[in-house]
């Protein structure tokens, strides 16, 4: 199941230490922007009196990875969805397709690449927590095994009835994500997408794409068949014309 992050919106104090740590870790320009951009991979927004972190959700079946024509995006066994800027040719289908609208583009550069949270894949692989989790002074962002985080989230929701909305965001959304969120305010009020299907969107295209080999065979055979029949009909007509001398076809 890999590693993940649990973000508890009720605990976040909005200090922005996560954003600054992310900037430093990933060598991004220091200025933290209010919304996600190619240069700000995580940021904290105020909604309904809460501080809400924005970052890539690291889907279990990432839509971005499924749509990328050059496989520049991929899910690692440890959990992070990583991006290989050397492969990317800039079609921006990942931006279009991401249900959480996470990948962002360097619109200002002549040689642009995508920017998005990669869940500190290098650190995670070395067994370290992500930079944001390590920096959080309020334990609002917790790093750990995803199964432990689910258990932790359930415990928090159950132990204080009414203190949380009874929903772990990211458990079912788009087939599950490595980043989980809990909150005491309904998620749609926090600007989170709540109209998401519980099956990974990637399945919908795969249902079509996986049928292409069959389709090519059947359609090709049909077209050759049509040609064979019409050509044969012509030949027969010609032969009849030849034997009858008058081409008497009724």
């Amino acid at each position, binding site marked *: 199941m890999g590693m993940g992050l649990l973000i508890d919106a009720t605990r976040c104090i909005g200090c922005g230490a996560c954003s600054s740590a992310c900037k430093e870790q990933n060598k991004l320009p220091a200025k933290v922007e209010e919304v996600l951009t190619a240069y700000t991979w995580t940021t904290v927004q105020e909604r309904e009196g809460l501080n809400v972190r924005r970052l890539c959700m690291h889907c279990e079946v990432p839509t971005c990875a*499924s749509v990328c024509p050059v*496989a520049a995006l991929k899910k690692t066994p440890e959990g992070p969805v990583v991006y290989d800027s050397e492969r*990317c040719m800039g079609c921006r289908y990942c931006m279009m397709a991401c249900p959480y609208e996470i990948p962002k583009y*360097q619109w200002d550069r002549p040689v642009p690449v995508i920017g998005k949270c990669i869940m500190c894949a290098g650190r995670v692989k070395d067994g370290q927590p992500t930079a944001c989790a390590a920096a959080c002074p309020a334990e609002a962002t917790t790093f750990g095994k995803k199964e432990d985080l689910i258990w932790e989230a359930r415990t928090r929701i159950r132990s204080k009835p009414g203190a949380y909305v009874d929903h772990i965001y990211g458990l079912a959304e788009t087939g599950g994500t490595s980043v989980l969120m809990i909150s005491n305010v309904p998620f749609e009020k926090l600007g989170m997408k709540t109209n998401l299907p519980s099956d990974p*969107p990637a399945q919908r295209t795969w249902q079509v794409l996986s049928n292409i080999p069959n389709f090519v065979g059947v359609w090709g055979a049909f077209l050759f068949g049509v*040609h064979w029949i019409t050509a044969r009909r012509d030949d027969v007509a010609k032969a009849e014309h030849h034997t009858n001398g008058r081409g008497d076809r009724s």
Partner: protein
Amino acid sequence: MNSTATLASRRFRPGFWTAVFVVTFLAFAIVTVLRFTKGLGAVTNLSDQFPWGLWIGFDLLCGVGLAAGAFTLTAIVHLFNLKRFEPIVRPTLLTGFLGYGFVIVALLLDLGQPWRIWHAMVYWNPHSVMFEVAWCVMLYTTVLALEFSPIVFERFGLHAPARLIHKFITPLVVLGVILSTLHQSSLGTVYLIVPSKLHSLWYSPLLPLHFYISAIGAGIGMVILESYLSKRAFGRHLEMDLLEPLARGMVVALGIYGLMRIQAIYRNHAFGTLLDFGYEGRMFLLEFVMGVILPVVLMSFRRLRSNPDWLVGGAFLAVMGFVMNRLNVSITGMEAASGIRYIPSAMEIIVSVGLVATGMAVFAFAVRNLRIFPEGPVTESQVPEEGA
């Protein structure tokens, strides 16, 4: 002096159009330079909220779709063996080839790093529709080039290669139809992955089929329209005996497509969004009533189909309906989810207009120098060639 002046005045019309083309090309060139020095943000109104705009919605989706006449007609002539349609195959192939050229140029501008376009051949991801699209563009452009090549070979008297192509024409046409079927539908499949973003008036699990069938309808419409434009430009006659039955085929394709769209809206419970007559509803009605219902109804009457003016009008409506549909899927239907209103920048429009102008100029050049029409290379014979 005097003779050049009369020559200039006589050639006023082509001169005027040449000037229009030159200005368009210059603007196009300037935008291209800006795009590659200042980045996509400097020339387009694209943003993180709206990463795909006019170049995808019009240049790519419509460029590919309007090339659909090529595979439809090659199938009719070579596979269904209806040889009487042969005289209009060549202009259709030319249009198809130009449509794909159009798409490739647009891609080179729209891709963030177009010099990496070959990556799609090396780094495979068979789960990606875009991967399929990339291969279809590459392979079908090759097939179209091969199907078109005999026309160029015969111009230079190279009969051996022309005969060779002719020998393999059936597998080539079958391959072209398969690739086109895959490609036309895959452009709809591209939008299958955004069920939470694309408006319910356009989203459907059957989007690939919607795109495929509407492309056949619009492809036929384009054949009729292009015959009409050739008539206007080169004083050719309209092959009514061929175009009238083609219009019947267009009615069938658009009729099936229209029913599928209505079924999709019913399934999405989206009729309610029409009643409040909002932005999406209005755009949908414009697209569907003008671009599907009207041409189907008009072209159902033999008397209207047999009248050149009505026929061309019906084809024009079908092509416009197609263009509106692709823009609605790629732009209108995506705006609400993005939270912003996207309007293309002047420079984006210049590129699209520049591409259309280039396509028309290349078409005219080909018609003058190759045997595109049965009567051979055509010139504006009204203008006598004087001096040198």
